[in-house]
């Protein structure tokens, strides 16, 4: 019944756009702070960068959130926890792998106890860096916005700022020195 209602609302009543808009501006990540990358996420949500401007509200329970932000190294023991957390999250859900460790193993590449995140859960966005800056984390969320909108890619438009009132005036063209006349 609820499935039929959902089909009707999304397809017939054309609510899909509204639904996507709602998902896009309420990406609530669950922290999986397994290593040092978690420090940068703290900066991302702090007053300096304030990722809540893009709807990124950090959450600590997986059952009320729809993004999982894997911050750092995943060991074989933690991979089981990651899978369990991922399966408890409601649909639609997205995974962001943050840092060199989560992407390919990073510092602990080819180790006896480290796994890559994409072998455990499907990853939507990768963030490179060790550690990635808060700007990179915000860009990952904007990439996720674009993915939900249906135009994947790092589609970040630069904002044009007119700086001319603050710049020093351009130097005036000097009159050309007269050619010296002999004699």
């Amino acid at each position: 019944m609820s499935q039929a209602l959902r089909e009707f609302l999304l397809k017939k009543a054309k609510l899909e756009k509204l639904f996507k808009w709602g998902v896009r501006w309420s990406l609530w990540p669950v922290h999986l702070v397994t290593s040092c990358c978690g420090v940068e996420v703290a900066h991302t949500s702090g007053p300096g960068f304030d990722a809540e401007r893009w709807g990124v509200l950090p959450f600590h329970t997986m059952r009320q959130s729809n993004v999982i932000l894997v911050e750092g190294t995943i060991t074989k023991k933690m991979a089981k926890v990651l899978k369990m957390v991922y399966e408890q999250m409601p649909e639609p859900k997205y995974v962001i792998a943050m840092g060199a460790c989560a992407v390919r193993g990073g510092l602990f590449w080819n180790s006896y106890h480290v796994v890559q995140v994409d072998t455990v859960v499907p990853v939507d966005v990768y963030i490179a860096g060790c550690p990635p800056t808060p700007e990179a984390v915000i860009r990952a969320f904007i990439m996720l916005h674009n993915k939900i909108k249906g135009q994947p890619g790092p589609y970040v438009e630069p904002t044009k700022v007119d700086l001319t009132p603050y710049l020093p005036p351009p130097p005036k063209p000097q009159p050309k020195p007269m050619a010296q006349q002999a004699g």
Partner: protein
Amino acid sequence: MSAKIPPKCPPPADHPLLEKLKAALGDAILNHGVTPEGHLCLMVPPGKVREVATKLKELGFDHVLSLSAVDYMAEGKFLVTYVYASYLNPDLKNQLLHVRAEIPRNDPKIASIADIYPSADYDERECHEMFGIWFEGNPHMGKRFLLDPDCCIDEKTGKPLYPLRKDFKVPDWGLMG
């Protein structure tokens, strides 16, 4: 030509603690040295580790800072290193005392000091898991502590493998990982 083997104990030198320790420990000291940082290092027989620990506790060393092992594969030996330190005794401030013991690699067994120094318990469990050294008397031997239960197990025999031993083969992820 054999591989060059690093020294087990640094070269001997004078140290302010040496007199006191020689009087207390007697013939339990096989050898001694001073590390480049100025810490005293003692070599003891593996059978006397508990005796040494009891006497050091009486001298005022109140915790074991670290306990680890070094794998000398060419010689067939493990070198177990205990680092003792003190928080409360003002004479022993800024002093680290290294105590080392050699055990054979094919039968790695040494007495546990976890009941004398409770701070050595976790280190012994980790050392057991990484090197396969059996600390006799510690109730947690033979169990996994930090490693995943499914990780580092020999597929043919089902026995655990010890990842920090020199002959452990790390999985090869290839060029692109």
